[in-house]
């Protein structure tokens, strides 16, 4: 590696540092805004002042999964991942069009500032509030562990010494394409003789970088430490508003970063069609004994490419992802609390359209970048979560101010991860403070005491997430999917019952929450501990997998069980007091208007 490359990599780190400083600064500004109102309402729900851009770009599920987990799957299994993520076409309209108005209205009428608050007040049951809080903490913890891994990986890749590794690892596969003009690259690639291609494949196969025993990855742990201190720090300072403001800032950085990277990758490699054909040509040739999924055509077709025979996305499994992302978005407590915090219905309406456009311009470019990653780095193996950060470093290596631009691009995934972590930490901390500390330990706690408990809670979350990442799992998207599915199965039906069904009872909602979460968890435990006989060879190749009954994601069964239990138990128990229900379901006039 020459000096120019080394020094330019410091530019990437510098740009990322600026981004981190800007995020912390926003946290301090958020703290000032909180001081204008009451601490609890300000810290946990931002005084219900979210506008359309803020709501649209922060209320849904862009996360480390979007920039690292999802591309990792596309890199490994090919274009089939487009169908896997396809339901995002309706995420904006479902996310804001079903529950937003009622959640927002009910939270105002009850004075609720968290999802457990809302359920507790709606059903007049502290047990529901506590159960909801505990379930939120449980499921979001999985998500946080995955996000901390993603944040650490980005800093690791951006670190100067890490860039050397990127360059080294990409060389054999890149051969001429990475180091020449696009025209020359295409020409060189197509000019490779069959023997040269075979030689290239053999060299690639020989490397097997992830099958060898590895030393301690100090760069990963350094990244983990920097990421943790930053994100825990600014969230402690500014609470919900810090999470939302930085989320908005980071969402803007995401679209800029993705646009730049997409343009650079297209310029350097060519069209998606070219990248796909090139990748397919260089996949190992199947033998007579190879499974059907080892056919290179599976890099384009379903159920996806896999040399070991694992089917990534058979049809029923694909259909179930139209439940995962939709109901996961609707049931996610971090989404629901933002709906509660929105300013008015015009905000909700505009958010539907804004997010529709935003999602389109995020997911398709990332998909292409990941497919192109297969051309540049065909042997990432278990490091495939790093494909987008590595592509950012690679794509900017030979352009003026390249390392600064790579830092700008890396800010996109880093921002997504930081935004997710900060918002989830606020949700977890609010649950601890409202439903455990205030609910059971000290109902008359002062604002200062609440602040102290909140800070302790956030630091504890950070420490646990760091500890859980000492041995990080493969495919962080597995954690994202489990957390999303668990949230959906636990909270979607209760939220629907709270918003639309007068007859719903506290016992019914409790049954709905517990049965939905228990179903999802049981299927996960069967998948993990059931042994080889319960490994159906579906989905990503990771030990953290569920048992997919009838080849469907657990969320489908969780939702079914949750709905049945919620309805049956509600009908079997005494109806709620009509006076209470009337206050939440019937038309009311403001007192001043009546007077």
């Amino acid at each position, binding site marked *: 590696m020459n000096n120019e490359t080394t020094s330019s990599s410091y530019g990437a780190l510098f740009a990322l540092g600026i981004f981190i400083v800007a995020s912390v600064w926003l946290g301090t500004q958020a703290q000032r805004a909180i001081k204008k109102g009451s601490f*609890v309402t300000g810290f946990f729900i931002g005084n219900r002042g979210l506008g359309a851009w803020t709501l649209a770009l922060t209320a849904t599920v862009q996360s480390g999964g979007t920039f690292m987990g999802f591309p990792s799957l596309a890199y490994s299994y090919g274009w089939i991942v487009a169908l896997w993520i396809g*339901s995002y076409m309706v995420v904006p309209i479902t996310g804001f069009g079903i529950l937003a*108005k009622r959640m927002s209205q009910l939270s105002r*009428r009850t004075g609720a500032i968290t999802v457990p608050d809302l359920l507790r007040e709606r059903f007049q049951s502290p047990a529901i509030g506590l159960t909801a809080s505990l379930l939120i903490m449980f499921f979001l913890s999985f998500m946080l562990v995955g996000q901390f891994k993603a944040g650490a990986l980005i800093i690791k890749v951006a670190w100067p010494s890490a860039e050397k590794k990127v360059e080294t690892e990409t060389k054999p596969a890149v051969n001429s394409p990475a180091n020449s003009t696009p025209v020359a690259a295409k020409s060189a690639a197509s000019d490779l003789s069959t023997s040269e291609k075979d030689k290239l494949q053999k060299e690639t196969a020989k490397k097997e970088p992830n099958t060898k025993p590895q030393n301690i990855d100090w760069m990963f742990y350094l990244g983990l430490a920097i990421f943790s201190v930053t994100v825990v720090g600014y969230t402690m300072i500014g609470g919900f508003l810090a999470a939302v403001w930085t989320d908005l800032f980071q969402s803007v950085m995401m679209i800029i970063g993705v646009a730049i990277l997409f343009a650079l990758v297209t310029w350097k490699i060519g069209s998606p069609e070219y990248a796909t054909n090139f990748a397919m040509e260089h996949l190992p040739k199947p033998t007579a004994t190879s499974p059907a999924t080892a056919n290179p055509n599976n890099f384009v077709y379903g159920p996806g490419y896999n040399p070991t025979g694992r089917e990534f996305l058979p049809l029923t499994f694909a259909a179930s992802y139209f439940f995962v992302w939709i109901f996961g978005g609707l049931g996610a407590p971090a989404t629901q609390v933002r709906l509660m915090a929105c300013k008015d219905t015009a905000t909700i309406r505009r958010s539907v359209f804004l997010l529709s456009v935003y999602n389109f311009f995020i997911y398709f470019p990332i998909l292409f970048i990941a497919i192109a990653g297969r051309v540049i780095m065909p042997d990432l193996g278990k490091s495939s979560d790093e494909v987008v950060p590595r592509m950012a470093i690679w794509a900017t290596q030979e352009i003026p101010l390249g390392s600064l631009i790579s830092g700008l691009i890396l800010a996109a995934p880093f921002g997504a991860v930081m935004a997710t972590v900060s918002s989830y930490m606020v949700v977890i901390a609010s649950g601890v403070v409202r439903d455990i500390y205030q609910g059971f330990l000290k109902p008359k706690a002062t604002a200062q005491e*609440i602040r102290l408990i909140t800070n302790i809670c956030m630091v504890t979350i950070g420490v646990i997430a760091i500890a859980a990442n000492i041995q990080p799992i493969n495919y962080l998207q597995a954690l994202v999917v489990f957390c999303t599915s668990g949230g959906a199965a636990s909270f979607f039906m209760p939220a629907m019952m709270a918003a639309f069904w007068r007859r719903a009872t506290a016992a019914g909602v409790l049954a709905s929450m517990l049965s939905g979460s228990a179903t999802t968890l049981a299927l996960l435990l069967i998948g993990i501990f059931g042994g080889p006989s319960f490994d159906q060879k579906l989905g990503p190749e990771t030990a953290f997998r569920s048992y997919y009954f009838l080849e469907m994601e657990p969320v489908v069964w969780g939702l079914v069980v949750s709905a049945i239990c919620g309805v049956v138990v509600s009908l079997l128990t005494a109806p709620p007091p009509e006076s209470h229900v*009337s206050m939440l379901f019937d*038309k009311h006039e403001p007192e001043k208007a009546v007077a």
Partner: protein
Amino acid sequence: MTNRGHVASPQAELDPVLKSSARESIFVFLVWLIATVYSVSMCYWLGYDNTRPVSYMFGVPLWIFWGVLLPWVVCIVVSWWFAYFYMTDEYLGDQHDTDDLV
């Protein structure tokens, strides 16, 4: 919980936010259902046979174009229409200071 600044109407009339929200939810569920059935069916029809020659449209595999890309664009248009012509504006209520719950 107290009735925070609101009094019930003499006749129990359904809340307008509840009514509009329920109406819009039904529409949204239909959009989700149609998108799911169309997308999964189209992808299965065109995208699960690896013996077919690989063909592309606008740089993406043909089955992705018909099964994911095109319906995604249609959903953006539907979302725009829903947001600006179907979903109604309602008064959500006043914000009440939550510290009095402490």
